[in-house]
């Protein structure tokens, strides 16, 4: 592999001041508001169209001591949510003006209850997200999205116009298209970017205005497409499972000889996968609610086959040799799906390494040993 991509230096610069990154700081210095959203089922465009900066609430890209969060949420709340809460309680998210979550899992729902009770930000809203993707579910979800819009307008005394929504859709779609271009490059036998680097890019994107992120992404894609860089790995891997922000986790896998060419994570592909219909004839709230409910499904959605089929398709499209499933303890949706998904993957001849982890965990110790053994197993299969 040749030198780092130049644009990645900017990415690392942004991530270095996590969570109050320089772009957020600059935004706040203009007297503007910031709202954290906690789940990919929250349509960021609504917040953007209100003139507010939506940022993704995440824990740090490393394993934290969760002492304060453990005092407020029981240890069986997943460590992703407790890590987020830990940082909030440590005042690292003090710059927030609001919080929007979704009813997507027990931990998310209860985090919102705790958030509301202790009034951690002036504005708190939880969006009811159906698990089904039927027309009836869509109607219900659309009403919820409409309600979120109205609450934002009332609380922040702003108007969210159809024009602003269309502009937000355009901006966010641009980001999605650029991310797709970046992921397309990873289909190559020797992609120009590693899996851990892509996660770093996404992490930065969660903590900056989307217009700036698009600019950065555009330059990154251009640089990566130049053919100057080729990353090699013995095996092409997919990482899937629970929320993951620690790029070092993926780096460990890649340092051992695996090349992570794609992911199925809500902090990765599931976040950006589908576009919002930008047809001017379609009501923007309608377009947004359709896209967010029908996007690449989270393991919470019903029926599970929707997710399973997309994972199997990704395996084919990205020529995946094996899958590393990282499941954060108490991420119940993933835990229930895993035996079913594993059987489907193995039926297709795709080996799966299951790692039960805590959010933020680096790929050291036992994880490193298990990944090593997994790669050795892939090697033996190749020789047969």
């Amino acid at each position: 592999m040749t030198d780092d991509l130049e644009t990645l230096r900017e990415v690392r610069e942004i991530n270095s001041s996590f969570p109050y990154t320089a772009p957020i700081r600059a935004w706040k210095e203009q007297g503007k508001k910031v709202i954290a959203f906690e789940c990919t089922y929250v349509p960021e465009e609504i917040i953007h169209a209100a003139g507010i900066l939506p940022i993704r609430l995440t824990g740090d890209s490393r394993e934290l001591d969760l002492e304060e969060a453990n005092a407020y949420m029981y240890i069986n709340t997943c460590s992703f949510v407790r890590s987020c809460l830990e940082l909030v309680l440590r005042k690292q998210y003090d710059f927030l003006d609001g919080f929007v979550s979704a009813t997507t899992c027990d931990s998310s729902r209860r985090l919102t209850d705790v958030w509301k009770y202790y009034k951690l930000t002036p504005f708190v809203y939880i969006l009811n997200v159906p698990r089904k993707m039927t027309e009836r579910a869509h109607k219900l979800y659309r009403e919820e999205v409409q309600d979120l819009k109205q609450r934002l307008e009332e609380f922040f005394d702003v108007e969210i116009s159809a024009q602003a929504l269309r502009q937000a859709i355009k901006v966010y779609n641009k980001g999605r298209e650029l991310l797709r271009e970046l992921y397309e490059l990873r289909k190559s036998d020797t992609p120009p970017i590693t899996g851990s680097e892509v996660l770093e890019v996404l992490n930065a994107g969660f903590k900056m205005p989307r217009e700036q992120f698009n600019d950065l992404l555009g330059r990154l894609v251009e640089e990566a497409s130049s053919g100057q860089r080729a990353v090699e790995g013995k095996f092409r891997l997919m990482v899937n499972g629970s929320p993951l922000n620690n790029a070092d986790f993926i780096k460990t896998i890649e340092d051992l000889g695996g090349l992570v060419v794609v992911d199925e994570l809500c902090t990765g592909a599931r976040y950006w996968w589908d576009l919002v219909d930008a047809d001017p004839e379609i009501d923007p709230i309608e377009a947004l609610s359709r896209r967010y409910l029908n996007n690449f499904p989270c393991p919470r959605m019903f029926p599970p086959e929707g997710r399973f089929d997309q994972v199997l398709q990704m395996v084919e499209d990205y020529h995946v040799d094996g899958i590393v499933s990282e499941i954060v303890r108490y991420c119940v949706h993933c835990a229930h799906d895993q035996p079913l998904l594993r059987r489907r993957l193995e039926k297709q001849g795709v080996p799966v390494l299951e790692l039960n982890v805590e959010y933020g965990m680096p790929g050291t110790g036992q994880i490193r040993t298990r990944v090593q053994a997994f790669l050795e197993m892939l090697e033996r299969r190749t020789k047969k």
Partner: protein
Amino acid sequence: MKVQAVDTTKLEEVIQGLEVGAQLERRRPDRVCDAVCYELLADYFRKAQKAKEEGKYLVCHTTTIPPEVFYAMDIVPLQLESVGTLASQIVQNFGDALSAASAFGLVPEVCSAHRLLAGQTILGWLPRPDAIVWSNQVCDNTAKSGNLLVELSGCPGFFLERPYRYTEGGVQYFAQELEELVHFLEELTGRNMDWDRLAEIMEQSRRLMELHREIRELRKAVPSPWRNLWYIHMMGTELYMAGTPEAITHFETIRDEVKKRAEGGEGYIHEERYRVLTLFVPPAYSWTLLGWMQRKHGAISVAEPYFSYRDGGEIDPTKPLDSLARKSFYCPICRPMYGPAEEGILHDTVRDALEYKAEGTVYFAHIGCRQTDACIRIIKDALLEEAGIPTLILDMDLYDPTYAPDDQLKDKLEGFFELLDERK
């Protein structure tokens, strides 16, 4: 994973255990309510065991699916968690079911109740259902476990989805989901829903709710006319048999007993020493803990906010699906588990503490229950601030006695009672 052939020996052990229990309780005048409960349960499981040979459809379902729909269609329902709960008390080697689930790939972080469901299915302990129905009304485990059960059982399934907030739109959505469930069952059985029959059943369901509320009022008496264990018995009856005359008989028996004592100024125990709120449920293997608290320490469970009908509309039998949908937003378990805490469990707990003059709270923290446990801190703080009472957290696993042995739970409870003494 190969699913083993059906062998209902374990279920038979549960039924026989209940029948023996009922006979023993019948001999004690103060335990007639318990005897009625065990007889009803034995009959409930027997019907499930015999459904196939009697030519009936058997539908297994997870907790909080309204059983009224099944009864109206002459379908035999079997609430899956109920078997695990009783099996853990009665059946030898019930831990084999947890091991089978583990071998299948379910990690220990999945609620043990749901690992048991999978394990029981894999081991063939339950009769093979004609269909499985499950919902999201309690937690992520209840929402997810049906997928796996359907795959293991090789039968059709229906996932019933309830919205989070109790709004008119939410009620409408859920009523339509129930209507779809009815169509699913009609297709399964080849029979149409008997809407007149459902209306009759809903009237019985309404009566059951009325009795529940009547009993709650009577329980305000000091000394308390209440036996701690009855709330668990009532919860079972409500969840498995709402809409049946048998359920009404059970509740009426309890109502009569409580009323007689309340009117006579007689407590269930001789000396009432502590009035406590009970949050969630004790481990299934140790329900006797509730009797021990009452008998040995004079600790009365005055209210159980996770299991109560509080605010909510009335059932209108002429609008059965709409009524069932509404009920699912305010009935026991559903409202406190799946809905915003602020206007749900948090609000109800503080109100119960004040209305029932509670002196402390015992919170059973099941390690597999992320919904209830994540509320511990806010409830604890609210109770201290608004009702001035302390809360004891008892860490445990509902089905795994190795997580927190009985003696350990008793030690912690005794320490808590000493604290309550100091506060008097």
